[in-house]
């Protein structure tokens, strides 16, 4: 428990910093949404006349921003990106933080196995991710109250938050795997961040293709399509894919971490 507590303590400051970003994005987005929705119908019709590539680069594919649900979905696309970066940061930090700080000799000479230490660190990272997603839910609820809308959006927010958590898990474990695989910590972190950037680019490509087909499997950002989540369902298949990817990545991360040569850099 010592280790877990210490990890929580050292992670709280960055967590607050990231939470601030989330807070600004959600509050500014939702509170001001009424203005954007007012001419939303006009915009939606207008946008539908443009070629797909323009719609995709604007991040407005397959949604109706005249509805609050559609507007929220557009906003959530950006929250997904934010969360993915934070999750990657958490994942690679859990594995290579001690190497970067050159404190690995102090920790890994303690009478605990590497797997034990890594599992506690990852558990702390998971706690932060979960707290972050819960805050997303709470912020959304608080912000939407300012709008005095008649409908109840609690279920919608809960669905989006759940998908946010699942996608965050994938990026967290992927970044942990990269950090464990690469010998140089900075290279591992870079691979994790590039994975977020690359899959986001793929998500934009996904939007601009008429029939993306198998591409969906390669970009977690499109595992849960806006239309489905707004409509009230979360793809069970892709939820399982998320969990499966997470398990595979983490198992491999543990395997590599057990065998690697710990050292500075």
């Amino acid at each position, binding site marked *: 428990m010592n280790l877990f507590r210490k990890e929580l303590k050292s992670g709280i400051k960055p967590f607050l910093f990231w939470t601030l*970003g989330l807070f600004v*994005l959600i509050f*500014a*987005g939702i509170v*001001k*949404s009424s*203005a*954007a929705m007012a*001419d939303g119908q*006009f915009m939606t*019709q*207008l946008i539908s*006349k*443009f*070629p797909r*590539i*323009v719609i995709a*680069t*604007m*991040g407005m594919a397959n949604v109706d921003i005249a509805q609050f649900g559609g507007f929220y979905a*557009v*906003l959530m696309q*950006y929250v997904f*990106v*934010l969360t993915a*970066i934070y999750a*990657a*940061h958490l994942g*690679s*930090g859990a594995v290579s*933080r001690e190497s*970067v*700080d*050159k404190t690995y000799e102090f920790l890994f000479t303690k009478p605990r196995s590497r797997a034990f230490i890594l599992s506690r660190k990852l558990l702390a990272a998971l706690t932060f991710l979960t707290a972050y997603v819960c805050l997303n839910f709470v912020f959304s609820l608080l912000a939407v109250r300012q709008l005095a809308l008649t409908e109840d959006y609690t279920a919608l927010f809960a669905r989006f938050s759940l998908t946010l958590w699942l996608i965050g898990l994938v990026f967290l474990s992927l970044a942990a795997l990269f950090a464990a695989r690469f010998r140089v*910590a*900075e290279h591992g*972190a*870079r691979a994790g*961040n*590039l994975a*977020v*950037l690359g899959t986001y680019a793929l998500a*934009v490509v996904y939007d601009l293709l008429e029939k993306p087909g198998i591409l969906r499997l390669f970009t977690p950002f499109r595992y849960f399509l806006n239309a489905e989540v707004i409509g009230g369902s979360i793809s069970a298949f892709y939820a399982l894919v998320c969990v499966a990817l997470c398990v595979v990545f983490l198992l491999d991360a543990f395997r590599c971490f057990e065998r690697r040569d710990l050292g500075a850099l």
Partner: protein
Amino acid sequence: MNVYRFEIKRTWAGVAIWTLVICGLLVGLIVGALPAFLESRAAVEDMLAQFPPAFAAAFGMQMDNLFSFGGFYAFGFLYYALFGAIMASGIGLNLFSREKREKCMDFLLTKPRTRSGLFFEKLLAAVTLLLLSNAAFIATSLALYQAYAPAPLLPERALLSASSLLWTELLFLAIGAFVGVFARRVRSVSGASTAIGFAGFLLSALHSLLEEEKLRYITPFQYFHAAKAFSEGGFEANYALTGAVITLVLMIGAYIRYTRADIPAL
């Protein structure tokens, strides 16, 4: 010039890859989608005819600007700026926190060189790389403009518009350098630069979603607006000035700190 040469040698490969990605994206967008985009004008005009004249008037004014090379160029700018910002803030962070990260600050600072000399060599290396990268970007833009834009051509406006990436990148270089100099420790350059770049991206997205004018003062991607440069032949002075002032202030702040900071014992 040892520091200059060293920093260039250490950084050029990453910059070259980023430049290729940005130019590739530009070519892909223009070649792949510009013709379809210009053709969609008729459909949009048809739709506008069904709406009350007030709407159409508010929007119709911009039709010529929107359905042009410049209008389309600006659509992609969000993404060039995202990649450029990650690259530029990465360069700034990397160069100005290198000794701090590798815990060899004392090795560098005991050499017979003034701190301000070191700072300027590093800065010069960073600016050289950005200029080279942008030379490639601007050349690509102008070539595409020659090939795809309908007459009459306005090359000087295209040049100004393409240069908005350079100004944006210089701003992010200053942000990166500032963070690199002031942060107590930099754990991961790529992590911090991705966060900075995406912060700019998210602010820009938020701005275009909400269309709130005041928000633009904190939206670095929109200080130097590519579409405006194309349609009006200049940046909007107040935003461009904000960007320039922020860049200078951050750079001066980083300089003061770099030349005066106490170097912690290891």
